[in-house]
Every structure is written in C-alpha cells, then in structure tokens.
C-alpha cells in the first residue's frame, strides 16, 4: 500500500515536470524539468521491481544525457514566447482520461486505518533503504552541475 502512495507522488512529479517543459519561460529550466521526468520514470521502474532497468535509466538518461543537455543549453537566457494555449486542451484531455482510469472505484486502493497508521512508521525505512543512495547521488550531481553553471556565468561576467 505504501508503494501506491509513493506512486501517486511519482505521478505528480512526472506530470507536473512534463507540463513545466513548455510552460516555463527559460530554456535551461525546461531542460531541468525534463531530467525530473526521467527521474520519475526511473522511480516507476523501481516500483514495479525492475531494478536493473531503473538503474540503467538513472545512469544513462538522468546522469549522462540530462547533465550534458543542461551544460549545453544553459547559455540561453530567454525562450521565445511561442506557447499557444489552445493546444493545451490535448494535455488536459489525456490527463482527465488517465485520472478517470486511476480514480475508478473498482481500481481504487482500500486503505484500512492500521495500514494508514503503519504508513508513517514504514515510510522512513522504505525511503532510506535500497537504491535511495543512488537517487541522493544523482540529486547531488544536479546540484553540482547547476552550481558550476551559475559560478561559470558569474566568472565570465567578471572577466568579460
């Protein structure tokens, strides 16, 4: 039951990050949002017991390609304001379709009270075990990359 609750959080992370790709005004923020989409799909693979695929997704897409993309695109200051909100209906229709699947009462999880009380105790153990260190390492890598880009921009402004 804890995995279903974690799944809801991962769903929210991935969907909101995917919407943020074309709603944010700066291009470097959009690339960071894309890396969070990859991170969410890696969490999904971890939740359905496909550990090797989650690890490969984390190493190849999140660790390698997103870092490369952040460093390459970070010189762009402002994205062109080209968003047409009429086509945003497509995303809303698909989100409503998927939520109608998700909140169908025949598929809904039945949580008893003792399971809900047990959630607070088991959440910490579930987060701190298994592959959590890898996700912490990826988060630290992102912080280092973004900090390096910021420091580099400050430094080039000082020189030039």
């Amino acid at each position, binding site marked *: 039951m804890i*995995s*279903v609750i974690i*799944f809801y959080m*991962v*769903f929210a992370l*991935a*969907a909101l990050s*995917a*919407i943020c*790709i*074309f709603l944010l005004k700066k*291009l470097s923020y*959009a*690339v960071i949002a*894309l890396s969070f*989409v*990859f991170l969410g*799909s890696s969490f*999904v*693979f971890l*939740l*359905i*017991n*496909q550990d090797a*695929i989650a690890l*490969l*997704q984390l190493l*190849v*897409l999140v660790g390698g*390609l997103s870092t*490369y*993309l952040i460093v*390459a*695109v970070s*010189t*762009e200051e402002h*994205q*062109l304001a*080209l*968003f*047409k*909100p*009429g*086509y*945003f*209906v*497509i*995303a809303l*229709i*698909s*989100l409503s*379709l*998927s*939520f109608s*699947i*998700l909140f*169908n009462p025949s*598929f809904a999880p039945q949580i008893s009270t003792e399971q809900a009380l047990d959630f607070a105790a088991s959440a910490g153990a579930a987060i701190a075990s298994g592959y959590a260190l890898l996700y912490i390492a990826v988060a630290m890598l992102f912080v280092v990359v973004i900090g390096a880009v910021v420091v580099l921009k400050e430094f080039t402004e000082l020189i030039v």
Partner: protein
Amino acid sequence: MIPFTYLLAIGLSLFGIGLAGIASEKHLVVILLSIEVIFASSTIILVSFFSFASNADPSALIMLVSIWAVAAAEIIALITFYVYMKSNGISFDISKLSKLKW
C-alpha cells in the same frame, strides 16, 4: 505491487503532455524535449507490459535499449543543432525555418 492500470495511466498522461508540447510550441528545442517525454512514456508502457506478462521473454527488452539509443541520438542531434544555430544567429522559431521548403 502497483496495479497495471496505474502504469497505463502514467504512460498515457505523459504521452498526451508530450503531444501537447509538440502541438503548442514553435521553439525547436522545446519540441525535441517534448519528444523525449514521449520516449519516456513509451519506455514506461513497454516495461509495464513486460513486467506484468506471465511468460515474458527477456529479449523483448532489446526494444527498450533501441528506444534509449534513439533518445540519446536525438539529444546529440539537438545539441548539434543548438550550437550551430546559436553561433550562426539562426532563429529557433520553426515557422521561420524555410531553407528546405519547396
């Protein structure tokens, strides 16, 4: 264990959001990033079908590796386009790119 419909729900919603990103943007880089979102959703759906099948063949995951290869190649092509167009002052608006038009 997550129910199968939940995985279809996240894959479907990510696919729709990526499709809306392609349809609603004219910036070249954002369109390619939305295609990356569609790749992520397709890997989620593929792995969930693989994980819930009773007699799954592990050689089906070759398809997954090929999806990753296409995504990686697309990111490399994106960075090449980005650096070239940025250094030559070409606009990223795809409605203004008319050199290959008939």
